[in-house]
C-alpha cells in the first residue's frame, strides 16, 4: 500500500521497460519550446487519470469511472480515450502530475482562471501572466492561438496571436493602411497594430480553419521554423460539465479524445522540434470527488496536469497522493492538491528556457516557497 503524503514518483514497470532513446537534457542552453493547453472550465482529474489502486475511488464515485481504464501502475490508470497520450507514456515522452492545483481554493471559474494564468496567489492582482513574465526574462517570443491575447502570455516582450478571420468579402489589411491607423493609437493598441502590420507582409496564411486541431497544426508548424515563436497557448473550452459528463463515453471523454489528438497533432507538426518541446495542460480547478445529483461534478480543488514532449526523459506519474476517504478530502469534498502546480510550471520553464529554479520562483512567481520538482518530471 502506498503511504499517504509521501512524495512519490511512480514509473510504471510497463512504461519503464520500453526501449525508446532518451532525449538528454543538458545544461547547454537549448532552444526549448513551451506549449500550454488551457483546459477551460475545470477538468475532472479523477475521470482522466483515475487512481484505480485507491479503493475509496469506487466508494466515492459510482458512475463516473471509466469501465476500462488502462493501468499505468498499481495506483493510477488512464482513461481509454487518451490513446496517443498513452503511447507517449510508453515511449517515455509524457508524464502526469496528480493531486495538483494552482494555489486557489475558491471554486470560482473566473478567479481560478485568473490565478492559473497570472500565477499569483491572489486573483486579479496582476496584469501579466506567469508565462509572459518567464518569456520576458528569457527574452523569447510566443503566440496565442485565439482571438484574444490571454493573460497567461501578457508581459512578454514579443507576443502575438493567431485566429483566422471568416468575414465575407474582406481581406487582410495592408501594411500601409495599418501604419496610418497605428498613428492614431498609443501603447498596447499601437503595439498590436504594429504586429498586424508585420504579419501582413509575411503573406496570407494558408490555414483558415480554427478548431483546436487545426490551430495545433498551425502552432507546431510555426514553432518548428528557425526563428518561429518558442511559446504557444491553446485553449480547449467546455470542461465545465455539471451534468451528464459521461464516464467511458460522453462529453468529458469526448474532450479527452480532443485533447489527446491535440497532443498528437502537435507532435506531428513540430517534427524534429518535438525533441525540444514541453507541452503542459493547465486548468483552473478540479472537480468534486463525488458525483452531484445530475451525473456530473461541481467545482472542486485538486486535479491533474498532463505533460508531453521530447524534453521528458522518463515517463512518470508524479503525485503525493492524499487519499480519497472523506476525511482526506479538502473540506470533505475535493481532492487535495498536494503539489503546487506552479512547481510544474517552474520545472517546465527551467527545462525549456534554461532559467534557474530559484530565479524563476523569485522573479516569475514571487514566491520562494515553491518546491523544485524538476527531477521528478525531467530528471
Amino acid at each position, binding site marked *: 500500500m502506498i503511504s499517504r503524503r509521501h512524495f512519490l514518483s511512480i514509473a510504471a514497470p510497463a512504461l519503464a521497460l520500453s526501449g525508446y532513446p532518451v532525449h538528454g537534457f543538458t545544461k547547454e542552453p537549448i532552444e526549448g519550446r513551451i506549449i500550454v493547453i488551457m483546459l*477551460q472550465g475545470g477538468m475532472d482529474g479523477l475521470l482522466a487519470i483515475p487512481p484505480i489502486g485507491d479503493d475509496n475511488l469506487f466508494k466515492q464515485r*459510482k*458512475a463516473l469511472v471509466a469501465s476500462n481504464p488502462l493501468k499505468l501502475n498499481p495506483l493510477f490508470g488512464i482513461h481509454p480515450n487518451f490513446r496517443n497520450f498513452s503511447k507517449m507514456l510508453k515511449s517515455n515522452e509524457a508524464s502526469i502530475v496528480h493531486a495538483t492545483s494552482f494555489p486557489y481554493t*475558491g*471554486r*470560482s*471559474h*473566473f*478567479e481560478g482562471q485568473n490565478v492559473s494564468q497570472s500565477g499569483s496567489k491572489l486573483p486579479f492582482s496582476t*496584469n501579466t501572466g506567469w508565462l509572459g513574465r518567464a518569456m520576458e526574462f528569457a527574452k523569447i517570443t510566443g503566440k*496565442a492561438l*485565439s*482571438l*484574444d*491575447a490571454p493573460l497567461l502570455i*501578457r508581459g512578454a516582450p514579443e507576443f*502575438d*496571436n*493567431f*485566429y483566422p*478571420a*471568416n*468575414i*465575407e*468579402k*474582406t*481581406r*487582410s*489589411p495592408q501594411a*500601409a*493602411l*495599418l501604419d*496610418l*491607423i497605428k*498613428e*492614431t*493609437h*498609443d501603447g*498596447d*493598441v499601437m503595439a*498590436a*497594430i504594429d*504586429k*498586424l502590420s508585420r*504579419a501582413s507582409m509575411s503573406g496570407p496564411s494558408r490555414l483558415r480553419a480554427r478548431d483546436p486541431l487545426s490551430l495545433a497544426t498551425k502552432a507546431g508548424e510555426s514553432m518548428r521554423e528557425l526563428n518561429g515563436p518558442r511559446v504557444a497557448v491553446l485553449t480547449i*473550452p*467546455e470542461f465545465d460539465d*455539471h*451534468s*451528464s459528463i459521461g464516464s467511458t463515453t460522453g462529453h468529458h471523454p469526448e474532450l479527452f479524445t480532443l485533447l489527446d489528438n491535440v497532443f498528437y497533432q502537435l507532435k506531428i507538426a513540430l517534427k524534429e522540434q518535438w525533441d525540444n518541446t514541453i507541452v503542459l495542460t493547465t486548468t483552473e480547478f478540479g472537480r468534486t470527488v463525488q*458525483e*452531484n*445529483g*445530475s*451525473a*456530473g461534478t*461541481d*467545482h472542486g480543488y485538486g486535479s491533474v496536469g498532463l505533460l508531453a514532449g521530447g524534453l521528458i526523459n522518463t515517463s512518470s506519474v508524479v503525485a503525493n497522493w492524499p487519499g480519497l476517504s472523506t476525511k482526506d478530502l479538502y*473540506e470533505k469534498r475535493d481532492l487535495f492538491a498536494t503539489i503546487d502546480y506552479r512547481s510544474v510550471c517552474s520545472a517546465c520553464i527551467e527545462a525549456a528556457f534554461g532559467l534557474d529554479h530559484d530565479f524563476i520562483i523569485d522573479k516569475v512567481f514571487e514566491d520562494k516557497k515553491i518546491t523544485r520538482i524538476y527531477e521528478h518530471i525531467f530528471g
Partner: protein
Amino acid sequence: MKIINAIRGAINLREMYKNKNQWARKIGFGFGPEDEIPTNIDVWNTKQINDEFSLIGLNKIGLWPDEYNFSIKQRFERLHKFKTIKEKVEEESIGRQEKNARLRISKNENAVHMYDTYKLWNSAIYGNDMFKQRLLHFWTNHFTVGGSNNFRNYVIGDLIYNVIYKNLNGSFDDLLYLVTTHPGMLDYLDNTHSSGENSKFAKYLRKRGQTAGLNDNLARELLELHTVSPARKYSETDIRNTAKVLAGWGLIVSDFVQEFNEKKEYREISRNITLEKFVLAPYLKNKAEPGKKVIMGKSFPAGPKALRKLTNMLAQDDFTAQHLSKKLAIHFIGENASKGEIKVIYDTWKESNGDLAEVHRATLNVARTTKTRKFLWPSTWMFQSIRVSGARFIKESKSDGGFGSIKDDGRPDFEPLGILQEIGHNFWASRQPDGYSEKKLDWVSTEHFDRRIRIASRIFRAEPSRSGEEIADLLDFSDRTKLAISKGRNSEEKFIIALCSSDLMEI
C-alpha cells in the same frame, strides 16, 4: 418622483460632452445623418430614460413587425415543431445528405434567434432609445446565458426582450427574480438538472439506480456574479443552501417536449403540467428540497416562495449595490472610473432601494461630467460606426455591401449573427457565465484589430453617407487622427482610418 441629492450635485459639475454627437456615443450609439439632433440635451436625456419607444421595422419601413416578436410560448411551440419534424425526418428511409437538407429547412423555418439578432442590430443602428439599448446590452451581459444548444437559442431573445428590456425601469428585485427563474437561465446554469437530495423526484430516481440530487452551478453564480460577489464572503454552505432553495425550479427543458410526451417517470412525478403552466411557473414541487434552509444567517421556508424571498434579500444586500454600481460605472464611464463616481451610483442605488430608473439616471449623470474614457466593446463600436457614418444595415441587392438581407420568403439570413461571432462579441454564443470583459486589454490583440479593419471595410461598402473626414469633424477628432486620415490614399482608406482610430474606439 424622489429627487436624489447626489444626482443634483453631479449636474452642477462641469459638463464634459459639449458635442452632442459625442455625448450620444458616450451613452448610446451616436447620431446618424437621419437622426434629429436634440436642441435641449436635458430633455433628450430624460426621454432616454422615461419614454417608451417603439422598435423600428426590419427594412426601416414602419415598425418592427409584430409577427417577429415572439412570446416564450411561441418560442416553445416553434422548438417543439422543429423537434417533431426532426424526429419524422430521422425515421424516413432517405440518405444522410437528404435528411440534413430537410432538417436545415425546418430549422430555418422555425428559427427565432435570427429575428432576435436582427432586432439587436436594428435597434442599435436605428432605435431612438439608444441609452436603453446600451443598458440592454449591459444587463444581457451581466445575466449571461450562453447559447450553443438549440433550446437556449430559442429562448435567449425572450430573456433579452421580454424580461430585461421590459424591466429596465423597474426594480432590481423584480429583474433578478425574473432572470433567475427564466427557462434560459435555469437551463444554462444547470438548475434544470438539480433536485433536492430529499425530494420525491431524487428518491424515485435513486430507487431506480439513477443518480439524482443537487447541482450548485446556478446557486454559485447567483451569489458570485449576479449579486453580492465573493467580496461578501459567504460560505460553501451558503452556496449549498442556495442550491437547495433553487432545487425544483426548472425541468430539463432541452428535451422538454419529449420528456413530457414519452417518459413515463416524468409524467408520474410532475403530474400533468401543461406547457403553458410550465412556462409561467417552472417550479416543480416534487423536485424541491423539503425543510427550511439558512443562507447568510437568514432562514428560508420550503416551497416556491422562498426563492423570491432569497432574491429580494440578495438584491437588497449592500454588497450587491457595491458590485453593480461599480459594474455600471465601468461600463459607461470606463475602467478607471473613480471611487467618487462609483459612489454617486451606489448612493442612488441605496437611497432608491435598487430602483433601476434612478440608478440608470445616476449613471447617465455621472457620465456627463467624467473625464474618463471607455474603450468600447466591439459590437458597440461596430453599431456606432454604422450609425454615425450613415451606412446601411440591410442589403438592398445581392451586390451591395449591407450586412443582412431579407429573403423572398421574409426570413433573415445568417450574416449578422455570424459577424457578431467573428468580432468575438455574440450574445447568442456559447461562453462563460461572467460574460464579456469590460477591460480594454482583453480586446486588444492583432486578430481583434484585423476584425475591426475588416468590419470597417464592409461598412464602407454599405454606402455610408459620411466620409472619414466628415466623421472626424463631426466628432472633434484629435489633430493627430485628422492628419492620419488625410494621409489615406483613397476615400476607403480615409474612412477605415477614421473608424479604427482611437478617437472612435474610445469615448
